[in-house]
């Protein structure tokens, strides 16, 4: 069988200089360019009105109380809990008390939502356009030959993708064309970008994809698609639930301290 015997193809060493390096260099440069373009295209954070800020921060206050309730004595906690639960149920902090029962604002019509969507759209555009361009360029200039051998074996299904220009039946799937070098670079250059551009760079598509997939992202509370009244009521319920177990961190602190004495 042809696959048992190791297939070797003699390659021109100039392959390195003319293909591998140029593709990598172009990808690094476009990545850097993309990062700076994204930074420049980002619009300033929109200024919010006082009652909107108040709404968000007072909700955060409830969250803080719930998270750190063990730091204060039980009596203090209960006093604060009662106050906050009553206030949340009454809707004291809502920026728009009339819209209590109405459905949440549609991102299409709400101007605040539009801004967020535009930002996401711009980010995606900045990601997709260079990718398409580079893929087209590679297909135009670097097709029709294989350039390297992958060190790990793959199934036959990958043949059509990785050996796009070379239509042979017997050639081992491990021999791939330059398009696959492009894909390898796409995932592998992340660490180089982190090195050049520091963390949080916009050339990193993985981080973006993870952000999109993560539903409980930091902006979930403030996105216009959420109903603040429901969030307040949910927080009030959470506070009631957490009130059941309270372990003041100061109980037994003296014993712990004395035990730690060496």
């Amino acid at each position: 069988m042809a696959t048992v015997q190791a297939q070797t193809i003699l390659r021109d060493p100039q392959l390195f200089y003319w293909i591998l390096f140029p593709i990598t260099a172009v990808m690094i440069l476009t990545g850097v360019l993309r990062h700076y373009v994204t930074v420049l295209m980002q619009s300033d954070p929109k200024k919010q009105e006082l009652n909107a800020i108040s709404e968000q921060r007072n909700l955060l206050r409830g969250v803080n109380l719930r998270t750190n309730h063990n730091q204060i004595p039980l009596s203090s906690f209960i006093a604060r809990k009662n106050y906050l639960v009553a206030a949340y149920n009454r809707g004291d902090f809502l920026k728009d008390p009339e819209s209590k029962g109405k459905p949440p604002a549609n991102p299409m019509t709400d101007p605040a939502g539009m801004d967020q969507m535009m930002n996401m759209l711009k980010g995606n555009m900045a990601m997709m356009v260079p990718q398409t361009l580079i893929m087209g360029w590679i297909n135009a200039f670097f097709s029709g030959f294989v350039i390297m051998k992958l060190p790990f074996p793959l199934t036959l299904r990958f043949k059509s993708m990785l050996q796009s220009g070379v239509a042979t039946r017997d050639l081992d799937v491990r021999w791939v064309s330059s398009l696959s070098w492009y894909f390898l670079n796409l995932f592998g250059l992340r660490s180089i970008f982190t090195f050049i551009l520091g963390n949080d760079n916009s050339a990193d598509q993985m981080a973006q994809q993870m952000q999109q997939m993560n539903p409980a992202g930091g902006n979930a509370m403030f996105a216009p698609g959420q109903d603040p009244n429901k969030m307040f009521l949910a927080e009030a319920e959470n506070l009631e639930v957490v009130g059941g177990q309270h372990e003041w961190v100061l109980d037994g602190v003296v014993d712990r301290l004395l035990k730690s004495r060496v």
Partner: protein
Amino acid sequence: MAILKLLLSYLSIHPSPLRNPSTSLHLSQQAPAFLSSSESTKDTQETWLIYEQLLLSCLRTGDDNSARLCLQRLSDRFGVDSARVKALTGLYDEATSNSPGELESVLQRYQDILKEDPTNMPIEKRRISLLLSLGRTEDAIKALTSLLSHSPNDPESWAHLSSLYFTQGLYQQSVFCLEEVLLILPNAYNIFARIGEVTYISASAGVGSANQTEAFEEAIKYFARSVELSEWYLRGWYGLKLVTGKLIQAKPSDGKLGKTESLNQMATEKLLQIVNKFRRNEKGWTGFDEAEVLAAKDLIDRDEQKFSR
């Protein structure tokens, strides 16, 4: 490059240089050199942070010219309408004003800015400090409370309110505010020590010996928590030693005193270690505040005298 790096490393060793007169002086003396050097035009975040620190320390030490220059460069870079720049300009005007009339006009300017833009927090805070320096403590407390009603997550404001209540003698409210800080920053060991101090002081000022013992024990718990979080926190050990000493004195024949005595001994040992190592300038032990170390030494000596009689 040299002076920028020097200042950055200085600020990393002394993160709050304005607490101490000597560090403020040192910083402001570097100011003219920095301002005339070429690195002061670099546009990085660190440069502008240094500018802010230099501005504040120059105003402290009276170097108004350098302060003016710092302020000018900050407003050139960020625009006169930036909230932070407006607050720093207000600060500069307050510091260099010559009469109460000028201060009043600055206050009026703050109110106008806030009427236009009620979300400008730096200006709100400046207004509160100005009210305090004008002696209008009640107005300051009112303004601070309204700030906290729309931004209850600001630990700095809660701590400020706590100190204001403390000056007015309203100890319970002071502790309430400090608890709010704890809800935001649960590992703030200095706040635990502060609550201990306020509890101790309010107990000493109040009447009724039964409540006093309970309050002292609560204060001890707070101090113990602060040193549990930070092993060499001098203020925590000092408070622990002081309050346990008071308890031991008040009730020399109590069965539960075993723990209090051991706490007292532990605190004394730690304080002794700190004092000795600081005195000998050992590596890693020089970061303590000298005044605090002196106070600790004083407490140790006082207690030794008491018990040796």
